[in-house]
């Protein structure tokens, strides 16, 4: 499959081994290394390279950004054939603008977030971008602390309007400069941000449920 013509083939680009035994590969600072780190007994895995690992991504784009921002670009890797950048929050907005204007990433596929409560910078804010001209996908990631807000990308890609509203709705990350930042999937007046890890799976905003739906138990 012709995905990213500019990136080097990662070691996982070879015919994939049929054995799906997960081999520990290290990525960035995610907590909870899985306990089952036993090496596979199967002979097939012993001679193969150690499974998918993020590989540094060399490209003119990365070189340009590194030249411009230096340490702001924390990582530029390729994992399983997908390129991603990890940036400092302060420069991310500018980099996104550069990506849209100069690097032809004119389609913002998605904006989303992930919550890592044990980290100091708890939130991962992720943009998935695509360039029609180059047929390339790119992920841009940045880390935010709890309560930190981020400039909105609506001026760059109008599609992020609802996408950022959903991130706000689910995680509580505020976007400065968003024209209409309010909840989108949950009702107005709901308290709590469900996709955070400290929000229970069957937890609901009981007060809202009681007042608006008239259900006494609040569920």
């Amino acid at each position, binding site marked *: 499959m012709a*995905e990213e013509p500019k990136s080097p083939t990662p070691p996982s680009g070879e015919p994939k081994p049929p054995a799906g035994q997960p081999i520990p590969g290290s990525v960035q600072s995610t907590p909870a290394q899985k306990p089952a780190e036993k090496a596979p007994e199967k002979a097939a895995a012993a001679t193969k390279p150690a*499974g998918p690992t993020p590989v540094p991504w060399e490209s003119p784009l990365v070189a340009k950004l590194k030249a411009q921002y230096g340490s702001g670009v924390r990582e530029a890797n390729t994992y399983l054939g*997908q390129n991603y950048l990890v940036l400092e929050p302060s420069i991310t907005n500018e980099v996104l603008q550069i990506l849209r204007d100069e690097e032809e990433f004119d389609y913002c596929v998605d904006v989303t977030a*992930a919550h890592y409560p044990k980290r100091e910078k708890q939130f991962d804010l992720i943009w*998935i971008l695509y360039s029609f001209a180059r047929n390339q996908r790119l992920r841009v990631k940045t880390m935010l602390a709890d309560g930190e807000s981020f400039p909105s990308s609506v001026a760059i890609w109008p599609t992020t*309007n609802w996408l950022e509203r959903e991130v706000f709705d689910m995680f509580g990350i505020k976007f400065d400069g968003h024209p209409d930042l309010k909840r*989108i999937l949950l009702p107005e007046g709901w308290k709590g941000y469900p*996709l955070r890890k400290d929000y229970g*799976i069957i937890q609901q905003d009981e007060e809202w449920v009681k007042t608006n739906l008239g259900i006494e138990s609040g569920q």
Partner: protein
Amino acid sequence: MTDPTTYLSHLELGEPDKTFLDSNELIINMGPQHPATHGVLRVILKLDGEKVLGTECVIGYLHRGVEKIAENRTYTMFNPYVDRMDYVAAVSNGLGYCEAVEKLLNIQAPPRANYIRVILTELNRMASHQLWLGTHALDIGAMTPLFYTFRDREEILKIFEKYCGARLTTHAFRIGGCQYETYEGFERDVKKFLDFVPPRIDEYEELLTTNRIWLERTRNVGKISAADCKALGVTGPVLRASGVKWDIRKAQPYAAYPEFQFEIPTGANGDTYDRYMVRMQEMRQSLRIIRQAVEGIPEGPIMAKVPKVMKPPVGEVYHSIEAPKGELGYFVVSDGSTQPYRVRVRPPSFVNLQALDVMVRGQLVADVIAVIGTLDIVLGEVDR
């Protein structure tokens, strides 16, 4: 509950009007219960007489917290939940998720499984487009195509039922391949379907394509330019009808699509009629793909060697497929345990629905319903 003017704050309403008669602007609510909004969607329209000045969509009535559920289920346990999002095209949802997790696990489904996946996915694309055609025509006033398309969709649902037991939310695929071998007579049934359906598609076209009233209702209605589509992130037949020849099955192929020959239909104007024509032609192209697939299914296993307890290595992956409605993407983050750390579903209908505002500005109220129909949204996917 809440004052409607707060919803429309971004439409520059200005001072609230003193009396109803003073203003020449009317705020009308197309409420969550409405025969034509294809699910629970609330659209607040700001009108000047009959002309639409702005819209605001209120969604979330069908929000079920699918992404949160994913964090509490193992990878295989989450598979059935995925069908329930775009319940009309459940097979595509399953395909996207299984392929995303397979990427994460670094395994590939065997070729036979890929062919079966393609056949079922394309059948589902046909079923989804048929349902779209019936409901869209019904909104515009033509009552009869609905019954014709549903009757023909029955044949597809019968094949699904014979294959995996369910008609609508099929859970057809598993991570690593397919669980069920094709049943005895699968190829024969599919070939019979391939012969049965093209005259039916001709019948739908005969009723609508050159019908003068249909042309007047759909030409120049809901126009959106290619640049707007790209900026708004609109994908799928809407993007193709605006002239952009882009289909993930060709641009970033997955499953067995590289081995098939098919065309990508595009339109010129980006109006409702073009979207109608694009989808009709997509139906025919789907038949072409199915024919190629069913004539060349390779022998072999249908399931890759997947561990019983799936623990993908720590990492994240984004994989998207061309669902009938647009680009359906799965962003799966694994922390090495048996349960995904985060599953984000990038729903095509959610992003396409944003474009509603741009598409109906300056059009009449009756067109809003036509445009909602032509965007082909499924609220299960919009809200998840």
